[in-house]
């Protein structure tokens, strides 16, 4: 199985359905390679064997036999139908959530994933699930069509506005698995990413108690400077990427979904309702926790609340980052967003 | 009766008969595309009707049944007249044919006028395509906007077809009057009439969907 996956460049199979789907994958692709090579080699062989010897050479008529044609048709059709039978059974299995699945509600919007758990907790872009239990996602979209895709699980489902669609999976091994949006949804489509954090029983129980605290080494090894000596600003950058702040806010002064962070700190902000405020620490923190309270004029109320999502440390790191940008150079004209993103982890890396 | 110019097949055709066959087949193939063009809208209508039966019933009941039905009658009559006109031209009665075609065009205009009156009525009531207008402030059923959008879209497209059909018949009428179109090449009027009939057939289906059921 691992060899097959290595040859086909498939990510390791994190869900219970992955192994069977990959077996069908291997079967189908092997036949495909064999048939196309066979056709090519046969054509080359005929060309060499029956090479034209003189310019005005004539040939006899040769025609197919009816029996031969029938065998060909029946043979090919039964092969294809076999694939369909296996594929359809697996498809139904992937579409039908088992009874008693744990339900998580998914709300997609440009360009983030929002998860609401049965116990009332919410999180953005990180879906925490236990290993070994079927999870059913009930999904809808706020704006356009998105598609919830976890390559490591071999599952995908479009997320439609105005409707619920469902998807389910059961994770086999603890680890993090990237979530990608697979349906084109606008300018930052390729940044609409998240991850599934599959936890073992103990870790999951601890998460249930303590919430979405980043693991102690979460900031380490992701950029220049290691855990100990990473400055608060540097940490802020990492948090801004991990929490997908940069999907809407730029660091270099360009206008995007949300206001830029460059030269934001200390400036006077004109709000949608006409009030004016100074962007100090309090304002910045409030905007993270209650984004709709002080919407800046010219922007839409699209930012979700990060209350309960950002830890106190993360919040202060973000504020420190924004403060460090107060003297950033002026933006060079109006260009569209250029967001630098570092590695999202590969499918199914074990912790 | 005006004198006729001798009518010959086009350069690349062997004879007139073959050219007439080609023209009719061409028109039928074109009608097939028209069927699919409207068919796409019918498919949308059918699927939304299955999804929102209640809203669609409400929309139909609100529509003006009498005007729609009158319009159906107008089109049926026009179809009968133009079919008679084709027979007349084939039998060599240019004058009769020209009068019948004129009447057909007239009925087409009557249809457009009645349709215009209906549109005016809807706009007065505050019904606009896309669920805009004050009528939708009082009627909230999910699917109503879709009903009226499809109504305006499909009937407007049909009205455009009526207009095109009337123009085609107008051109043919002028050919008859100038003596370019007669018994020998009556297939040209036939082809134009077939188009007019198709416009009629489409309305035959629009009528029950938007006014009756």
């Amino acid at each position, binding site marked *: 199985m691992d060899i097959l996956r290595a040859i086909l460049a*498939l*990510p390791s199979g994190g869900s219970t*359905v992955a192994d069977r789907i990959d077996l069908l994958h291997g079967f*189908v*692709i092997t*036949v*495909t*390679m064999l048939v196309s090579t066979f*056709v*090519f080699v*046969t054509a080359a062989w*005929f060309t060499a064997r*029956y*090479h*034209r010897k003189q*310019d005005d*050479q*004539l*040939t006899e008529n040769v*025609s*197919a036999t009816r029996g031969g*044609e029938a065998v060909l048709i029946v043979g*090919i059709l039964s092969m*294809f139908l076999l*694939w*369909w039978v*296996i*594929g*359809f059974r697996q*498809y139904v299995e992937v*579409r039908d959530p088992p009874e008693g699945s744990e339900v998580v509600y998914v709300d997609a919007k440009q360009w983030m994933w929002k998860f609401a758990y049965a116990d009332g907790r919410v999180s953005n872009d990180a879906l925490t699930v236990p290993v070994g239990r079927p999870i059913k996602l009930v999904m809808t979209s706020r704006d*356009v069509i998105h598609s919830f*895709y976890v390559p490591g699980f071999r*599952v995908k*489902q479009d997320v*439609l506005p105005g409707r619920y669609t469902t998807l389910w999976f059961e994770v086999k091994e603890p680890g993090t698995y990237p979530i990608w949006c*697979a349906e*084109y949804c606008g300018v930052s489509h*390729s*940044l609409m990413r998240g991850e599934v954090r599959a936890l073992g029983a103990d870790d999951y129980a601890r998460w249930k108690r303590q919430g979405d605290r980043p693991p102690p080494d979460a900031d380490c090894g992701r950029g220049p400077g290691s855990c100990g000596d990473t400055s608060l600003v540097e940490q802020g950058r990492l948090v801004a990427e991990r929490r997908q702040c940069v999907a809407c806010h730029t660091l270099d002064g360009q206008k995007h979904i949300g206001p830029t962070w460059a030269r934001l700190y200390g400036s006077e902000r004109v709000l949608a309702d006409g009030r004016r405020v100074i962007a100090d620490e309090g304002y910045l923190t409030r905007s993270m926790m209650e984004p709709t309270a002080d919407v800046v004029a010219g922007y839409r109320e699209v930012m979700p609340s990060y209350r309960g999502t950002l830890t106190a440390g993360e919040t202060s790191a973000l504020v420190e980052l924004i403060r460090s940008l107060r003297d950033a150079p002026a933006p060079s004209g109006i260009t*569209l*967003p250029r967001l630098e*993103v570092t590695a999202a982890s590969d499918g199914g890396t074990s912790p | 009766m005006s004198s006729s110019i001798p009518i010959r097949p086009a*350069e*690349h055709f062997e004879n007139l008969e073959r050219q007439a066959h*080609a023209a009719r*087949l061409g028109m039928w193939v074109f009608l097939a595309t028209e069927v*699919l*063009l409207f068919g*796409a809208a019918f*498919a*949308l209508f059918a699927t*939304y009707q299955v999804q929102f039966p209640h809203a669609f019933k409400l929309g139909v009941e609100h529509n003006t049944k009498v005007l729609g039905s009158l319009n159906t009658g107008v089109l049926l009559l026009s179809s009968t007249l133009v079919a008679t006109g084709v027979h007349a031209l084939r039998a060599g009665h240019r004058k009769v044919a020209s009068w019948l075609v004129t009447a057909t065009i007239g009925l087409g205009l009557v249809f457009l006028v009645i349709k215009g009156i209906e549109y005016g009525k809807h706009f007065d009531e505050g019904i606009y*395509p*896309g*669920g805009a207008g004050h009528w939708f402030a009082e009627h909230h059923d999910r699917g109503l*906007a879709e009903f009226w*959008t*499809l109504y305006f*879209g499909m009937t407007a497209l049909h009205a455009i077809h009526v207009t095109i059909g009337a123009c085609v018949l107008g051109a043919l009428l002028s050919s008859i009057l100038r003596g370019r179109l007669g018994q020998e090449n009556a297939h040209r009027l036939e082809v134009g009439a077939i188009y007019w009939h198709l416009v009629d057939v489409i309305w035959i289906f629009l009528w029950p969907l938007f006014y009756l059921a």
Partner: protein
Amino acid sequence: MSTTPLAPAASPAPEASHAPGASPRPVAHPSYLGVDTTLRSWLLTTDHKRIGVLYLVTLLATMALGGFFALALRIEHLTPNATIVSAMTYNRMFTLHGVIMVWLFLIPSIPSSFGNFVLPMMVGAKDVAFPRLNLLSYWIFVAGSILVLLSTGIGGIDTGWTFYPPYSSISATAVPLALLGVFIIGFSTILTGLNFIVTTHTMRAKGVGWMRLPLFVWSIYATSIIQVLATPVLGMVLLFVVVDNGLGWGLFDPARGGDPVLYQHLFWFYSHPAVYIMVLPGMGVVSEVVASYARKNPFSYKAIAYSSLGIAFVGFLTWGHHMFVAGMSKFDAGAFGVLSMLVAVFSAIKVFNWTWTLKRGAVALKTPLLYIFAFLFLFVFGGMTGVATASMSLDVHWHDTYFIVAHFHFIMVGGTLTAFLAGLHYWFPKMCGRMYPERLGMLSAALVFAGFFVTFFPQFLLGNAGMPRRYFNYPPQFQVLHIVSTVGSWVLAAGLILTAFYFLWSLRWGAPAGPNPWGSRSFEWRTASPPPKHNFRREPPFEIDPYDYTQPLPDEVYQ
């Protein structure tokens, strides 16, 4: 856009009779190129051959433009983040690449150029049934293309070539203009298809029965059926998106009860058969080229002819396999899955028939046949991966990833483009009366094949690894495969540029071809090259079958 490149096509007026094989009599009738050489006579021509040439020149220009966008996209992916353009520009570029390649090049590619040029000759007619409609269709195509290109100037369009609402309903880019352009091009497609259907039915010369039509005619006929019946559905649904975006009618707006999935149904009802609009004519070219260079009758004429019709009809029943994860019901998904399996059988029949046609033939390996070998390998691979995606659970993983991108490029580029190039080499002597340089042809065919394979094979692996399509930023672990793919695209471009150069060279300096350089039996070769205005100078002898290689063709047919 369309007028300037005409000069090279119009300039040579080669004398067919100088060819060594033909009888050395002076030319009594000028060729279709020589009858009238003013620009006006070209732009307002009703001669199907000239219209074919007009299309060919226009389509080569649009292909170059689409190819330019493709190269830019590949260069952008050299690094995981911004390389040469911004995300917004990238989104506009991949949309335009798709729109241009699909509607401005692939859909009309073979039918409108080669179909127009050779189909009337293949049925023994002087022209198509409605020559003026044919000219109108060309100008409608030009008008639609100009609209689409204008939309680039005023903000482009960033929805992807599939225009899915609700995104296309709210996108602030020039959606209405571009969609109207596509809508207008649709009319051109319909009129061309209509013309070919009626021509095939009513213009066949005496002795050319249905079962004696060259197989290219069958494939174009089947294509025309799809064009005529599928295109109006696209037109309707695009109109609704235009009013959605432009006037806010909101037919697919979920807030008003609209259902975006219905758009996808109607869109794919056209766009899946459209795949066969693109590839069926290519199959027709393969049938002609294989028979001509193997100098043998097709292994089973009827199987190839009827499978074209089979593809045309069953192709209409499979649109839902683009929507397995779109929120369609399981019942519909299963039905579309099994119906998709049927259509592949027809293609398989064709592939085996072409291969076995070579058996016991007298095969001469020329450039067109080389392209056909590329076609066979790439099309089979692309087609089989298509069947694989109809194996439904696999599609759940592959949908909207680079696997799909690779799959349809194997069909569209590996299939249609190689067949188009094969046809271009095969019919170039017929169109211009001159030969292309054979060795350069072979070299560029090898370059195109290698370049294509290196470009798109890595994309299968990218898709397996989960890389979604239409991604501007991508995770760095994919970079190696992306770089390989980009390098491949340069090789492919080099092959195509080389081809362009030697064709331009051959227009003036190519060796005179003679009426039938390949010794083909097909009807379009039974006249001078280039042909006279009315195709055949006398009633051509159609009593010898177009695939009968058991007897020599009498010399009189060329007079």
